[in-house]
């Protein structure tokens, strides 16, 4: 085995400072990708331990080896199936009892050697905790390294301990936890039965299997049923043992076993983590902050202000940079086109390169500043511990409309741009809630739709422009709420995802951690979504240019012909002319393109466009057109990101399909309803 193939898994509870330890171990030598088949981030890095180089895999934060969400399942499966040689478990030193539950489970599993990283020792000390890591290490039989990872303290020591443990290449030490005599007897008896089942017993160590079966773990019980000839025998033995034990102890076995583990840990912690003074009497700083932040009256206003700041930062700071990038690409496009022309290149080539490729790449990159700043803000909210508070404060409201507390942030961000909105759903652990939030997100009227509203409302509703635009925003919100409920009852039936959420203590985020996180997440957007968006942009360019010899985006081009075909479909909505259809078609690229396209098609400059629009549209058809623009399809970049985030063409297709149908139905309703009311 080459040493570079040695894999160390980094596990630990959420908020234990696992990522900080990971960053300290690997430096900047990280690779961020996704776990196969899902959108959970997979972080991997190289660490140099003395002379050997090892791969460190940063697993999603988990509390135990029982998985509730995809991240947890990934971490669990990695630990159970890949069986890394060494698992470093990061512990929050101030909260040892619960943090030790995971390593205790890993010791019971007994497939990997462990090194415990007792992190944030400084915070434990300020809380008056004195931790005897040496004693704890002896009692558990695994090495423990105290660290303050964000200050780099203890990292060298951790590296040398990891190197030593790798070199040992011994089987992991036995788990020090023993259950009561009768439970131990039952475990032994069940193990005997399991050992007779070759296939089942090969999956995991038999003691682990026996414990999990006694605990009534559905996952293992399920495996037992799967074409196992001797499964019945084990099951029969299990039932007898469970009945016998449960009549003996007060609780059901599941509770009893978990209780025993916590009882053991409580004993350990009281022996090795002594309180020098009782800080429970005083409110911790974190609790004091929470008195304000989650206050009955201030909680929601504070949340809204923070959202507003995030929103402002994303679009006000990001906006000018985005404009700059847009300008640079525009400049580049023009000059390259001029260069090609001066070299007597064909006009179509100049157009392909400047409008198609450079314009296409630009249309993707232009989102980057907003996305990066958004992720920066989200990283600050996450690392400081606020994100969980936001979900805590908003959960009741969001739950009432069928979403989750954590859906609120993506929805609010959607008002700015649906792409960061959809990407922000990554903070949600429940897959159903996440997909639901993604599906309705495009209904939040993004800033790109605003130019269309301004044009049409300005041209035809001069005195009620504000009201008309506001009504469109509200329409989007109401539709999102209704559709969330409808989709939930159609596709995500059953119990709503429970909320069992830790509110981590507030911490000061580090610049390094925040920037690294924001960069890694926004780089994913560039890499993956960029390919889809880019391809689509180039495709549309071809459609707008071919066949050769016709003017760009005229009725004779493929896209013009498509518009002519599509126009009759839009007739019931009151705007059944090809220019509108083509404008909407181009609007798929980005909704604000509708304005520019109409300008091109009506051969007029933007400032005079309002007057032209007023000739072609009535107030009623204009409103129907705006409703259509709001709903009809997520823009191409959003579609790309929906595909990426749901990892499913089915859901992507559904998002496109339902919005097209809904947009058409609603704009037809607006037009026909309006006519009935005599507004035509």
């Amino acid at each position, binding site marked *: 085995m080459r040493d570079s193939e040695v894999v160390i898994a980094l596990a630990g509870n959420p908020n234990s400072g696992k990522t900080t330890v990971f960053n300290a171990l690997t430096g900047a030598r990280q690779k961020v990708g996704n776990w196969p088949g899902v959108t959970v981030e997979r972080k991997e890095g190289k660490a140099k331990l003395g002379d050997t180089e090892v791969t460190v895999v940063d697993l999603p934060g988990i*509390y135990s080896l029982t998985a509730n969400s995809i991240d947890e399942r990934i971490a669990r499966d990695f630990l159970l199936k890949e069986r890394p040689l060494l698992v470093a478990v990061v512990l929050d030193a101030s909260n040892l009892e619960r943090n030790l*539950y995971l390593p205790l489970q890993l010791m019971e599993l007994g497939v990997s050697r462990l090194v415990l990283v007792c992190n944030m020792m400084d915070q434990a000390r300020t809380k008056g905790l004195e931790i005897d890591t040496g004693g704890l290490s002896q009692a558990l039989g695994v090495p423990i390294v105290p660290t303050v990872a964000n200050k780099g303290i203890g990292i060298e020591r951790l590296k040398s301990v990891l190197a030593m443990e790798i070199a040992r290449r011994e089987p992991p030490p036995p788990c020090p936890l023993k259950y009561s005599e009768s439970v131990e007897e039952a475990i032994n008896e069940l193990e005997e039965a399991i050992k007779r089942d070759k296939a089942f017993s090969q999956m995991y160590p038999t003691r682990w299997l026996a414990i999990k079966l006694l605990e009534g773990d559905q996952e293992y019980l399920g495996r037992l049923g799967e074409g196992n000839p001797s499964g019945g025998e084990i099951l029969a033995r299990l039932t007898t043992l469970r009945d016998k034990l449960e009549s003996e102890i007060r609780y059901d076995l599941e509770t009893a076993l*978990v*209780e025993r583990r*916590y009882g053991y840990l409580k004993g350990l912690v009281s022996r090795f983590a002594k309180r020098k003074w009782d800080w429970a009497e005083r409110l911790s700083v974190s609790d004091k902050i929470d008195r304000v932040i989650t206050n009955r009256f201030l909680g929601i206003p504070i949340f809204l202000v923070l959202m507003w700041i995030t929103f402002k930062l994303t679009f006000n700071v990001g906006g000018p940079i985005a404009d700059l990038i847009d300008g640079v690409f525009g400049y580049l496009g023009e000059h390259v086109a001029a260069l090609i022309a001066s070299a007597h290149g064909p006009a179509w080539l100049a157009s392909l390169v400047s409008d198609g490729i450079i314009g296409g790449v630009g249309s993707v990159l232009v989102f980057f500043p907003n996305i990066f700043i958004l992720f920066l803000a989200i990283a600050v909210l996450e690392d400081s511990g606020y994100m969980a508070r936001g979900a805590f404060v908003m959960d009741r409201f969001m739950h009432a409309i069928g979403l989750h507390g954590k859906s609120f942030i993506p929805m609010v961000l959607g008002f700015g741009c649906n792409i960061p909105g959809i990407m922000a759903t990554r903070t949600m652990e429940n897959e159903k809630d996440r997909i639901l939030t993604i599906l309705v997100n495009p209904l939040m009227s993004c800033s790109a739709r605003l130019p269309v509203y301004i044009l049409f409302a300005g041209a035809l509703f001069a005195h009620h422009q504000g009201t008309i635009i506001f009504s469109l925003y509200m329409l989007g919100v109401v539709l999102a709420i209704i559709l969330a409920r409808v989709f939930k009852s159609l596709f995500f039936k059953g119990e709503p995802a429970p909320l*069992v959420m830790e*509110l981590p*203590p507030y911490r000061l985020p580090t610049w390094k951690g925040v920037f690294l996180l924001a960069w890694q997440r926004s780089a994913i957007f560039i890499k993956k979504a960029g390919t889809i968006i880019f391809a689509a942009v180039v495709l549309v360019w071809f459609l707008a240019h071919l066949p050769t010899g016709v003017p760009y985006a005229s009725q004779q081009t493929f896209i013009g012909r498509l518009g002519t075909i599509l126009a009759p479909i839009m007739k019931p909505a009151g705007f059944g002319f090809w220019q509108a259809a083509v404008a909407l078609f181009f609007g798929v690229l980005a909704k604000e393109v509708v304005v520019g396209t109409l300008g091109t098609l009506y051969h007029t400059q933007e400032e005079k466009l309002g007057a032209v629009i007023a000739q072609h549209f009535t107030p009623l058809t204009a409103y129907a057109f705006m409703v259509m623009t709001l709903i009809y399809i997520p823009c191409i970049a959003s579609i790309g990101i929906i595909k990426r985030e749901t990892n499913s063409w089915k859901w992507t297709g559904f998002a496109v399909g339902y919005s097209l149908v809904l947009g058409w139905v609603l704009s037809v309703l607006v037009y026909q309803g309006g006519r009935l009311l005599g507004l035509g």
Partner: protein
Amino acid sequence: METLSHSAEDYLEAILVLSLEKGKARVKEVADHLGVKKPSVVAAVKALVDKGLVHHEYYGYLELTPKGMAIAQAVYHRHQTLFRFLYRILGVEVQTAERDACNIEHYISPNTLERLVKFVEFVESFPNKERDPKWLSHFKKYAETGEPPPCVGGERGGEKVKTLDQLKVGEKAVVRAVKGDPSLKKRILVMGLVPGTELEVEKVAPLGDPVDFKLKGFHLSLRKEEAKLVEVEVE
């Protein structure tokens, strides 16, 4: 420890008690203490001297050898434990407790005795030495009046069984049980909400749900729907 006849153990214990109480033990005092005749004491003491357990000084004082002391102390400890068990825990009256302790100590097996010692230690380890633990006072009341313990009907003396969602902010409780479907139950359990865990309601979200609890030094939020699954005891 070599096996001695019951009466030999009694003599050793008597010598120990007398020397603890009066500083010295003589044949006459031993005879009075045990309620036997002096010649019987003399004969028994001779046997103990032969076994090297007691020194018999010329002028009548009896003194335990280190070996005799060890046996005497063990016997004495055994006796005291039994006495405390009968008197303090079962509530038997003093004289009966004393007499029965004398009788039981000779017949009880070392294993049972060891458990009994542990039990007495356990009961006596409660922080408030002045008062009996609650369950013990319930028991004594039951022994005297036949009144069943108040916990049978779901409510306990001063403690109420509630579900977690019924608690108010600032209220403290101890987890009794977690209900619900297996996966949700497991999820709640592994977060540390196991029976016996103390927790406090820290805050309620502005819209009335979810609720934040403090336990084992960290904060856990549950919707009332989930909190309903956790049964607790409130003081």
